[in-house]
């Protein structure tokens, strides 16, 4: 009888340890196993080139869009800016990188001006159509140019990739999540 009690206790302790090891879940969709985020180097809103891997050690939120976007990008960037503010001092270990799908209009300077409305630490990346198409392919991003009255628009992937400190593409947050969800997930990734 005593042996049985000990066995049950051992199983309970083991199960608890496993549960603790798994830890709390992310609000975002999680990749398993996480792969290394494809690296790229592109002209940036900082006036210099940006290389994704230069942010190893930080959590990176990688988003794709264009500065004339009226439906998705302003909301996403406002939410990311709010999340970074809510993180407080930990926000210094968060880097938002926003890659344009519209290089015709989005120069490095245009991206700097646009992103400054949300958070001056956000980095915008642009490049040639071929450079940007290669990055989109690596990340499975779709971007289709559509004619609209008075110009054009892009239908583009609206989610945000979460890249951990080790440069692994850990998770993907679909459009529509609140800043609190980003804060939750970034805080967890920063602890890893």
């Amino acid at each position: 009888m005593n042996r049985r009690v000990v066995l049950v206790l051992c199983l309970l302790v083991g199960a608890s340890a496993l549960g603790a090891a798994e830890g709390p879940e992310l609000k975002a969709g999680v990749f398993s196993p996480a792969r290394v985020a494809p690296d790229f180097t592109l002209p940036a809103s900082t006036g210099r080139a940006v290389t994704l891997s230069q942010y190893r050690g930080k959590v990176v939120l990688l988003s794709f869009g264009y500065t004339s976007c009226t439906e998705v990008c302003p909301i996403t960037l406002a939410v990311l800016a709010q999340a970074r503010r809510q993180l407080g001092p930990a926000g210094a270990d968060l880097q938002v990188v926003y890659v344009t799908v519209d290089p015709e209009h989005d120069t490095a300077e245009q991206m700097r001006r646009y992103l400054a409305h949300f958070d001056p630490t956000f980095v915008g990346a642009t490049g040639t159509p071929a450079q940007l198409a290669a990055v989109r392919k690596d990340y499975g991003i779709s971007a289709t140019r559509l004619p609209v009255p008075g110009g054009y628009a892009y239908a583009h992937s609206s989610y945000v990739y979460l890249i951990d400190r080790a440069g692994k593409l850990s998770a993907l947050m679909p459009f529509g999540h609140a800043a609190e969800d980003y804060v939750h997930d970034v805080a967890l990734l920063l602890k890893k």
Partner: protein
Amino acid sequence: MTARRWPWAAAIGAALVVTAAALAAFAPLASRSREQAFEIPKGTWARRMAGAKVEILPAEIRLTLGVRDILLLINHDDVPQTFGPVLMMPGQSFRLPFAVASTYTFACTAHLSGQMTIVVDAEPLPGWARLSWRVRALARSGRWA
């Protein structure tokens, strides 16, 4: 059965139906897993390249908050696949929890139509909502939930 026993039989039958409906309407929802899994089998890309029409996912996936609200996608194929909203490498899985009832539309190369729709229903509350949800789930899957 004699004519005198008919009213009793009818009453007992009605009581059973009412009890079953009450159970369906108020019993807690039970689910072994909250994951709804879909897999791209090995060789899918090769079969498509050979001209076969391969449809892996239903055009519409229905999830229910609190019951089955986690979409699990697994790529067993030898090539990367854009599966729902994500690019997945061979052998990789993607686990996406949903917290808001809504209809989500994603581009998806795993669908011949190129599009995948995920309808996330609100958690069915006890009462009529839970009863009708159970009836629909039973009709869809043939299983009690």
